[in-house]
């Protein structure tokens, strides 16, 4: 199968117009020594029906969140994705447009990004948001790059209770930025503000997560204050779906708010594509990475939208740019916009209250000791009497994926299971999990 449109007759006419006798002549500029000179060794072509059959077979060998009762979270969550998100994802105009460099051709997508920026600012309590970053991990590296340029300090501090993948990405990027990375351990599942202040004395920025990776609610206002006291920027890594009930980072003095947008409007999709969001207070606007849409007027005075402050960006500023980012995650961010608009302020608050209530209910019903005392938003860590990975294995045999084994990332936590509860889990689901965990740990 191919998606080409040129017929043999077209080809003859086109070659004649060009003034060559064959397509091969057009490739004469490719030196003979670097030509492949054989067919690519790839499987034979498939028609559409065969292609669908082949990929359906591959998909059938995956156990997805609808095929077992799943309590997996740890950074990616199966919150409900409303059907209106499909309006964004399936409209060819959104799906197949490029970055809106030509505003007259792109007012719709530009306005949608402007609305997305507004929603992110509103939820995080920030003044300015970009049009999206790759994911919740790379936006943390972007935030470090901002901090690096607004400070003489050459260190960033990460709370150990920050998502391990986020920390790994920051550590990968940091040497290129000339930044040293220091981690502050958690104490009983949460970060200690005094320890954070001590570590941040000569740091450009501190990144902590609310709710954190261990499922605990951090004393976030105290952590932001601890960072500021040490003269470091406070950067909060937050979950958009929590911000109907939890305080906005801007309200407790954070300079920058970042996070993984997947929970709001994207499917798990085995890790992507999703969107990362990055929002900041106004003083950082000229250091922001990535696309930003602004409002202006056309020559008739009609309201219009355009990519703006582009002198920050690589295509104008080249080696002096605030980032190399070009392609971002616009389509996924707009699915997020549709989802958050569908929920509205009441719906988002209700999702949050449901998560909180289910987490509290799980604490009471699950016949295991909670690993930490701090309150939860939608994840609770439990101590298991046998290795958590073994609990996962046994529970899956009974049709329940009970959660994430924290020993994958944290030393000394081989017996800790992180259970995630989105609003899609029911009281009966929690009861079934409790029964299964009782059985496999007996």
């Amino acid at each position, binding site marked *: 199968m191919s998606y080409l449109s040129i017929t043999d007759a077209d080809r003859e006419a086109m070659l004649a117009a060009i003034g060559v006798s064959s397509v091969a002549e057009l490739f004469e500029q490719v030196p003979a020594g670097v030509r492949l000179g054989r067919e690519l060794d790839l499987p034979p072509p498939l028609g559409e029906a065969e292609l669908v059959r082949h990929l359906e077979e591959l998909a059938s060998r995956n156990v997805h969140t609808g095929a077992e009762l799943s309590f997996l979270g740890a950074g990616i969550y199966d919150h409900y994705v409303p059907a209106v998100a499909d309006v964004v994802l399936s409209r060819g105009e959104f799906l197949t447009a490029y970055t809106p460099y030509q505003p007259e051709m792109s007012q719709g997508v530009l306005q949608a990004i402007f*609305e997305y920026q507004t929603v992110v600012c509103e939820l995080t309590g920030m003044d300015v948001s970009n049009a999206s970053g790759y994911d919740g991990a790379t936006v943390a590296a972007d935030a470090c790059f901002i901090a690096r340029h607004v400070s003489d300090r050459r260190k960033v501090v990460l709370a150990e209770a920050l998502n391990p993948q986020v920390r790994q990405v920051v550590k990968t990027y940091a040497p290129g930025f000339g930044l040293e990375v220091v981690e502050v351990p958690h104490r009983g599942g949460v970060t200690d503000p005094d320890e954070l202040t001590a570590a941040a004395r000569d740091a450009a920025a501190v990144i902590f997560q609310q709710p954190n990776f261990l499922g605990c609610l951090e004393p976030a206002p105290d952590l932001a204050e601890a960072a500021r006291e040490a003269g470091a920027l406070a950067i909060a890594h937050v979950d958009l779906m929590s911000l109907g009930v939890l305080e906005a980072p801007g*309200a407790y003095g954070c300079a920058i708010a970042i996070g993984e947008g997947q929970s709001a409007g994207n499917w798990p999709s085995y890790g992507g594509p999703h969107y990362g969001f990055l929002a900041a207070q*106004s003083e950082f606007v000229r250091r922001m990475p990535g696309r930003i849409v602004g409002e202006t007027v056309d020559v008739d005075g*009609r309201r219009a939208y355009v990519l703006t402050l582009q002198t920050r960006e690589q295509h104008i500023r080249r080696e002096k740019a605030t980032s190399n980012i070009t392609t971002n995650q616009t389509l996924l961010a707009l699915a997020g916009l549709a989802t958050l608009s569908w929920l*509205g302020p009441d719906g988002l608050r209700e999702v949050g209250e449901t998560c909180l209530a289910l987490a509290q209910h799980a604490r009471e019903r699950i016949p295991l000791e909670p690993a930490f005392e701090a309150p939860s938003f939608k994840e609770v860590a439990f101590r298991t009497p046998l290795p958590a990975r073994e609990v996962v294995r046994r529970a899956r045999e009974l049709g329940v994926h009970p959660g994430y084994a924290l020993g994958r990332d944290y030393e000394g936590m081989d017996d800790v299971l992180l259970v995630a509860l989105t609003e899609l889990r029911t009281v009966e689901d929690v009861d079934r999990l409790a029964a299964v965990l009782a059985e496999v740990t007996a």
Partner: protein
Amino acid sequence: MSVPRPGEAWREAPLLFERSRPGRRAGRPPQPDLPPADVPESLRRSRPPRLPELSEPELVRHLTTLADRTFGVDTGFYPLGSCTMKHNPRVHERLASLPGFRDLHPHQEDEAAQGALELMWRLQEMLAEIAGLPAVTLQPAAGSQGELTGLMLMRAYFADRGEERDTIVTADTAHGTNPASVAMSGYKLEKVETDARGNLDLADLRGKVNERTAGLMLTNPSTLGLFDEGIEEVARIFHDAGALLYYDGANLNAVVGISRPGDMGFDIVHYNLHKTFSQPHGGGGPGGGPVAVRDTIEPFLPAPLVVRDGDAYRLDSNRPKSIGRVRGFAGPFGVFVRAYAFIRAYGPGLREMSEAAVLNANYVLAQLRDVYELPYDRHCMHEFVLSARELKREHGITALDVAKRLMDYGVHPPTIYFPLVVPEALMIEPTETEPKERLDEFVDAMRRIAGEAEEHPELLHEAPHGRPVRRLDEVRAVKQPVLRYLFDGDPALVEAE
């Protein structure tokens, strides 16, 4: 072609926040009968977020209105140079939405994700064959992140060998991402000039490569749409100096199955799955930027990689020399589904894809070269660069005016003012999926516009005439930035000095 004259209604689109009415709503999440949770008041939200309040019909109409005011490849011809705006097969959307892919949690145990892992492993293998290099990481999220990954790989490779090298060479025709990636990765930048035929200037190059050089970043064919005829000598110069060559895959669409970057002498390659392999561009993203390398660089690839043990597949994170992780999980899986399906549809016929892309570009070029200036007079590859310099000199018409007027003919403009080495540049990439009639219409529009430049220059200065808005005050957008909707009483953005 006729110029569209839409009604005034098309020109008005209230914001979501203006459509909002207090108390209106769409979604109603489940609310189980459970006691409210006990959360410290200090952590609770003090002021509700001002999200829009809309019923579902109004929300759907809003999104549809915005889609109507957006132009995609599905709408019409989109010859945006270096962006490869080809048709995106619809079956890909169906495939990426199969529950076994879409609803698969990335922390799922490897044994319960065998289909996904096999797809990724096979994609790695196929991309390796296409690049002519043995090892592939799928993790980078986009081309620019692939570049950064490539530069980190160079750093790790030289550090492992105990060599100190601090400079990366780029072409003066390079995409802006190349120098930006060099700066982000902590390297120094050296630029090399283009010669009169559009190749890298070998004399200039020889003087700039030495024992401090870590490597070259090059797009081939270049952003001029020309294959570098001296590529073998370029590779020799860098390899003789102990340096590496990085291939920016932005223009790979020209040479799939014809010439492989690995065979050209490149050591590290990134692919743009959203260009060559038809992941839809989504109004700016998502993309996918896998990286292929020679076996000497394989130990440094980001973790995890997908490996095969007998008949089973797994994620391998035990890679002691790895540069680390550049993105969450193993990469943008949904993009892999589409790229995999695209390659399986064509098979070895990918070569015909590139041949058609090159044929289409040369066909358009042959019919425009007498009315627009062609700075490098050669057959092109998949794209070409014209200059509106003569139109500007003779009629005061710029590349921007030509671009804006094209909109009135129902065509998305080409890339303009890039590459920087060509004044008043118009960079045109038709792609392989366009039929001859669309190309003929475009040629006709471009020729008519050249005529209008002489006879009715005001038509061009004032274009576009048939879009929802006319030309924008972009200076105002910068000087008085409005970057979010301002609710009643919200202050304008004030920047600290």
